[in-house]
């Protein structure tokens, strides 16, 4: 009964998203794409944070790597978006492997500090290597080539066309993350979060699993970055800045940490809230901080967590 509900909700959501793709104005399309891209970023991030219990402050580095990967690929190699996205994901995963190799040797405080420091290293590299990355101007004017699948050629130049590519990757990511959570691998990660000593004694290499979780979440961040670049058609080093790393953290917290739908719900609220707040003020980050503070001090289950608790309490009463 319960799992049926979940499938119905997912199916409804996809239907709504497809409907948005066909009937909406450009602005709504743009917001929906932003939400889906942020969802991919946050779902991947939550494999590390919610699942494995490791708080990273450096995931923007992988997002930016994905974005720069696509940009550089389409400038120098090939404009095929799928090739670019693959390159972006591969680059982000590779970088996550290197950085993760150093970071997973520690947990908690050290881990947070190291990811922040390494993330800022990537930021400073992107800032300094002007010849490759364009320095503080970044790379701009990246065109979206058409997706050619041998005999079939699909144009994604228009936002209404590109939307379906984003939707495809969003659905794919949801499926993948769901599979990961159900798999033995995902269960080991939850075990590490709950008690890493016991997991170690059960004969599982905790460090290796942590590294794997790090790389997987880095790859998702890379995918999000790649799609983000194709959406905005430009990227600057600030995509790798630590304040951008805070986005998936806040999204996961807002939605609810140890839930599957948390990052998605969080992304919807985050993007809409940001859009709303930015109409009144330029200092969105200030409100971002205040919201984060409020969640930590009094609302730790996030939206999904709190709602589930409320539903449970109500169903007990009745």
């Amino acid at each position, binding site marked *: 009964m319960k799992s049926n509900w979940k499938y119905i909700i997912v199916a409804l959501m996809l239907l709504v998203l497809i409907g948005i793709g066909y009937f909406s104005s450009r602005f709504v399309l743009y917001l929906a794409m932003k939400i889906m891209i942020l969802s991919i970023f946050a779902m991947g991030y939550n494999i590390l944070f919610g699942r494995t219990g490791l708080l990273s402050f450096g995931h923007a580095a992988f997002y930016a790597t994905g974005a720069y990967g696509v940009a550089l690929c389409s400038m120098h190699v090939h404009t095929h978006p799928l090739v670019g996205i693959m390159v972006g994901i591969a680059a982000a995963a590779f970088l996550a492997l290197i950085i993760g190799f150093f970071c997973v040797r520690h947990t908690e405080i050290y881990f947070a500090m190291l990811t922040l420091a390494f993330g800022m290293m990537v930021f400073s590299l992107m800032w300094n290597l002007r010849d490759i990355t364009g320095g503080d101007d970044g790379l701009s004017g990246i065109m979206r080539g058409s997706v050619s699948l041998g005999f079939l050629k699909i144009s994604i130049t228009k936002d209404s066309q590109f939307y379906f590519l984003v939707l495809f990757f969003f659905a794919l990511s949801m499926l993948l993350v769901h599979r990961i959570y159900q798999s033995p691998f995902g269960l080991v990660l939850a075990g590490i979060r709950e008690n890493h000593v016991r997991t170690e004694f059960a004969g599982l290499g905790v460090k290796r699993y942590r590294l794997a979780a790090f790389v997987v979440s880095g790859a998702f961040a890379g995918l999000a970055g790649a799609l983000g670049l194709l959406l905005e058609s430009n990227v600057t080093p600030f995509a790798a800045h630590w304040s951008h790393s805070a986005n998936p953290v806040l999204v996961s917290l807002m939605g609810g940490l140890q839930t599957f739908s948390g990052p998605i719900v969080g992304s919807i609220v985050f993007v809409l809230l940001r859009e709303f707040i930015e109409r009144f003020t330029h200092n969105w980050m200030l409100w971002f901080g205040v919201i984060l503070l409020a969640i930590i*001090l009094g609302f730790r289950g996030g939206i999904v967590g709190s709602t589930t608790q409320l539903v449970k309490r109500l169903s007990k009463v009745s």
Partner: protein
Amino acid sequence: MMESLVHVCLAGISAGMFIWLVASGLTLIFGVLRVLNFAHGSFYMLGAYLCYTCLKFLGIDFWLGVIVGPLAVCVVGYVMERYLLRQVYDLELPYQLLLTFAVVLIADELVKIIWGAGSIGSPTVPGLAGSVQIVGRNFPVYNIFIMVIGPLVALALWALLEKSWWGRIIRAAASDREMAAAIGVRVPSLYTGVFVFGAWLSALGGALAVPYVGLLTTGMGEAVIINAFVVVVIGGLGSLKGAFLGALFIGLLNSFGTRFIPALDMFLTFILMGVVLLWRPQGFFAGVDR
């Protein structure tokens, strides 16, 4: 070449002293409260901006500004510990980190609102404005002053922690919170005190940096906190000796990097950090003096 090397060294040492002032507060707070304060760089920045404001609008002396600015930051530190951090000591660690992170966002943005997002030119210090000749080149007197202040603060901290009654209490609370509480130490007040003191150290660094950096920017806190993180990773979290030597080392490394391989200046630091992590993951001085 020789002169250039000497000057690169001197510049590195004086830059390292600012990192030391921030890293010392960070280390002290971590040692006692077991909280890693991401907002420590923001205290540094606030110290600098408040000191500048004192000079500019109250028209007071620079040295008075160095006293008033950090004291104002102490109030911020007090509010943060008493009303925010105290709520989350019992929670899981990510929440504590995220709380200090939220304070960073709020503080940085408030600074942008109050002082503007642009850079602010800072004044010179009466009495220490000139420069002296060292091996054939000019070197600012103020930087020499900083190179004296840093070790003095280190010495004072050492004396405070190792030789004074207060130091004994702080060390007791750091090594066993329950036991210290049982023998009558008022641990919550002590926590507040140590946090405020740590904030003051960082803000003092910021205030002293006003004439040194030349330009105040909203990114100054973030640059220094990342260096401080690298320092505590290398020196060992919780070790003041490690923080001092680490800060000196990172200052020198940055200085040499900027001089000889400008495109990769920050990169050097991180390579070093990677090497240390592989070789001695707990840092070089962890467990030596505490």
